[in-house]
């Protein structure tokens, strides 16, 4: 199909409208509609990726309404453009969306009873927004799509418990500030360049030599700050932990892997495509101080994750730390760092998904996600726990999970750029992750009690009740998506070369430094 790129957005959009309308007739129709539209969107996304790989310019473009783009400055129409990076990220978005939509049936029925007709349309719109962010070629449309994703996100979180409403309000305030800053920045860019098309802006900056223009500098700071708030970069992370831990299961499964990661994609897009490498790294001082902010961010987030006694909260702080990894990978300014950042977007989405899916199952089985509830859970639901462990190993960075390979490129990048502080902080946070996950593994596998004392008589007797040791796996509609996510974590790790090849092709024109000396 020629216009597969447009269908990536249209399938979930049509699906959400259908859900809203048919859901009023029969609530049970929502689930199959959402799965179907996600299957279709995933297919369109794979098709787009293949088209982008096959095309000589390595990109696919679609102009809504067919408006002209050839004038200078380019950018009268609404352009959707999938280069290799955009196509990859879009595939991640709809892929995660597909897995979560399969998983959604039971948790949605249980946690938001009788609200399916409200929930699924928001769910699908959220995916539309996120996929749109990955595909749009227009700085203003990007703002619109960020708001689409954000507004549906507020709804998806607040639809849950009463606590969620308070967390959503917090998120709403900070999210709006972030988006407004971004919009303000785009306004400045428009004043100076007269275009909103991403490539157009880049062309104007290059031809008119706007590198030292104060207006552009201000625009860069505003846009950067807005994005940092939206991606929950420490210290702007305050909205994230509460929002994700009090949201309904399905919501956190969808938002946690995608929202922060997509915003990192936006940052990379701004740095490389919109402002250009020369502007971002040589006309501004960001590459000087950002790695140090990243160090602070990772250390603080990792330590806060260590202080949590509840899986969802812990994972939320882990996400904040991982955001630090990727931001650092960009601002150490080098080829390997960029590969690491982009690959980490993909792998972090997969492993966070894996962990949140498993957490959802734990919540269903134990009624709590507090560490206490985990005692001896391995004998009850081994498959779920294996899925959880795979995600955990990937966060730690053990081969051959995908987390190892992204960490490898990030460390390599830090080394080539001689940003030792970044390398050391990666090591530090890796060790924290080891502690975090093996602490959980001790509880799950060795049945450690909170006090650390042995409750059983030893020799295999762990002081567990019969109910705790009886095999009782999660329902298949939840287990299969989890195992799917876990195997994707492994497969992306083993086949990392295929992904990295595409990232390298995307990065080739930007002439990023690869390092020279020893």
């Amino acid at each position, binding site marked *: 199909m020629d216009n597969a790129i447009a269908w990536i957005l249209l399938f979930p959009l049509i699906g959400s409208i259908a859900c809203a309308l048919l859901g009023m007739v029969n609530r049970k129709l929502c689930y199959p509609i959402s799965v179907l539209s996600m299957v279709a969107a995933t297919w369109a996304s794979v098709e787009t990726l293949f088209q982008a790989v096959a095309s000589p310019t390595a990109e696919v473009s679609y102009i809504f309404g067919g408006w002209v783009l050839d004038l200078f400055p380019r950018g009268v129409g609404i352009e959707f453009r999938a280069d290799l990076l955009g196509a990859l990220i879009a595939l991640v978005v709809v892929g995660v969306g597909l897995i979560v939509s399969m998983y959604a049936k039971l948790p949605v029925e249980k946690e938001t009873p009788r609200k399916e007709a409200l929930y699924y349309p928001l769910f699908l719109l959220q995916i539309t927004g996120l996929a749109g962010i990955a595909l749009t070629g227009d700085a203003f449309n990007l703002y619109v799509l960020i708001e689409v994703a954000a507004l549906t996100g507020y709804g998806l979180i607040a639809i849950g418990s009463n606590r969620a409403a308070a967390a959503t309000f917090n998120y709403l305030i900070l999210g709006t500030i972030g988006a407004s800053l971004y919009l303000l920045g785009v306004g400045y860019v428009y004043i100076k360049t007269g275009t909103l098309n991403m490539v157009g802006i880049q062309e104007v900056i290059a031809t008119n030599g706007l590198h030292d223009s104060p207006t552009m500098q201000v625009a860069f700071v505003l846009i950067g700050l807005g994005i940092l708030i939206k991606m929950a970069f420490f210290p702007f992370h305050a909205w994230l932990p509460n929002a994700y831990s009090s949201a309904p299961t399905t919501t956190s499964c969808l938002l946690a892997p995608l929202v922060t990661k997509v915003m990192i994609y936006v940052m990379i897009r701004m740095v490389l495509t919109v402002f250009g490498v020369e502007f971002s790294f040589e006309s501004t001082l960001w590459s000087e101080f950002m790695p140090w902010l990243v160090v602070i961010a990772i250390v603080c987030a990792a330590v806060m994750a260590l202080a949590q006694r509840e899986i969802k909260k812990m994972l939320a702080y882990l996400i904040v730390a991982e955001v630090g990894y990727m931001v650092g990978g960009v601002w150490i300014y080098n080829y*390997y760092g960029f590969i690491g950042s982009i690959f980490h977007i993909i792998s972090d989405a997969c492993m966070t998904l894996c962990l949140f899916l498993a957490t959802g199952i734990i919540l269903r089985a134990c009624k709590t996600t507090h560490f206490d509830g985990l005692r001896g859970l391995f004998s009850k639901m081994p498959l779920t726990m294996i899925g959880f462990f795979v995600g955990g190993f990937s966060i730690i960075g053990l081969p051959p999970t995908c987390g190892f390979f992204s960490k490898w490129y990030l*460390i390599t990048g830090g*080394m080539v750029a001689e940003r030792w502080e970044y390398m050391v902080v990666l*090591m530090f946070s890796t060790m924290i992750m*080891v502690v975090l996950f093996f602490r959980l593994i001790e509880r799950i596998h*060795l049945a450690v009690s909170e006090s650390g004392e042995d409750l059983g008589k030893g020799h*295999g007797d762990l002081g567990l009740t019969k109910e705790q040791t009886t095999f009782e796996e999660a329902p298949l509609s939840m287990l299969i998506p989890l195992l799917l996510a876990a195997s994707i974590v492994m497969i992306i790790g083993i086949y990392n070369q295929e992904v990295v090849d595409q990232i390298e092709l995307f990065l080739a024109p930007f002439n990023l430094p690869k390092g020279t000396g020893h």
Partner: protein
Amino acid sequence: MSCFWHHLTSQRGLGTKMSEAVVIDSVTPTVELLAPWVVEDIRPLIAFLVPWLGMIGIMWAGEKRPNLRETFTLVAAVIQSTVVLSMVPVILNGAIIECHVWQIFTHVPLLLRVDGPGILFACVASLLWIATTVYAIGYMRGLHEHAQTRFYSFFALSLSATMGVAFSANLLTIYIFYEMLSISTFPLVTHMQDKNARTGGRTYLGYLLFTSLCLLLPALSWCYVWLDGGKVTMDFLTDTGKIGFFTEPTQIILLVLFTFGFAKAGLMPFHSWLPGAMVAPTPVSALLHAVAVVKVGVFCVYRVYTDVFGPEVLAKMDGEDWMMLVACATILISSLIALSQDNLKRRLAFSTIGQLGYIVLGATLATEQGSGGAVLHIAMHACGKITLFFCAGAIFVATGKKYVSELRGLGRKMPITMGAFLIGALSVIGLPPLGGFISKWYLAMGALDRDAAWVVVVLLVSSLLNVFYLLPVAVTAFFRKDETDNEPIGIKEAPWACVVPLALTAVGCFVLFFLSDPLLRLAGIKD
């Protein structure tokens, strides 16, 4: 099938040394060639995968069919050993077996390659796995241990990872299998699932993951990026000595990171995990913490010294002497600590740390006889030390005794076990006609080749210390009477499944001495 592998590997450029190599499909060539020639073969991969299949069988049989489950383990061990042994003639003919698995990284494939030291290590590990399996059946059933399915499953997985390390052809491959081994042994170390096991497990993973993630990984990516303009494959055969392009301080930093990064080698100060891991059941201590895991550590260090740095680079470096000092210090200090240990398994653990120091020392010597002696010591020490651990476990199964001071008069009750203990101890001490003598001899020769006579003194002193901490165990058992014991004197051995393996490995110590010729050829000492 062979065509398929041939096709895979033929796309990959062989390095400079290999450019004239002849690629042939058939085995046992008749003409002697000067350069090592490469045989494409899937057998290394089979040796790696057999334990996985065994594991599936073990899990399928489960706790309800213990006999079937143990049969699966035994069959997997026997098949693995057969596959490994079938490769020995090819290697002895001077060929190298390669198996290209997957292009996992830009320029760096997941490549398995079988050469002399690798096959020697693989033979030792897989043959001793058979013995340990039989022993484990006696031990685990004798003590009515829980979760035996998990035990045998992860045991198989560990052996798979060990094969992976033994057959790795480059640094990345070795790293992947090294980490796999760390994780797959964790459930074995924490098998008892009580407080001690937890502490042991924490120490174990803490040390191993800290060193591998924080020391090894930076060193690896350093080599990956900088060597040869980022095009280096980190291959052990074709890229040896390329590290010489680095400046001297960089080389020293890398050497330190690599040596301590492989903490499984038990080099001080990263040795504490090994005594901590003794909380595991004895078969684990015997095979993994005297043979497979620790030898994986020293094997990796050996690879780094001989096949990444290479003798020429090391000869020009100053830092290497310091590593020699560290190894010597480890040998002496751990022997002294072993003297003070009353718990038999802990005493053996510290003895292992000392003996691992020998192997690292041999690698740091960077002479032909020195590194050959190191490879030999992997085999010789394995056979001796596994006997000692088997004995310690047999004593525990038969009498429940763990401490050296409790062993009085045990020689009369368990003559076979204590006799085997004596043989194993003498082999570890290094007396002829036992295997341990040969490797120590070549280590000493290697030191003399380098004009490092003081190393020979260290070796002698440490052998003396070995005598002091190992022989009293046998002496107590044979010559001191237990006054408190009122039972009539009679033979009370452990179950036959425990006794037979330890008797066999004790005999193995003699066999290794008399049939050492192929070992010397595999270790590269003799042509």
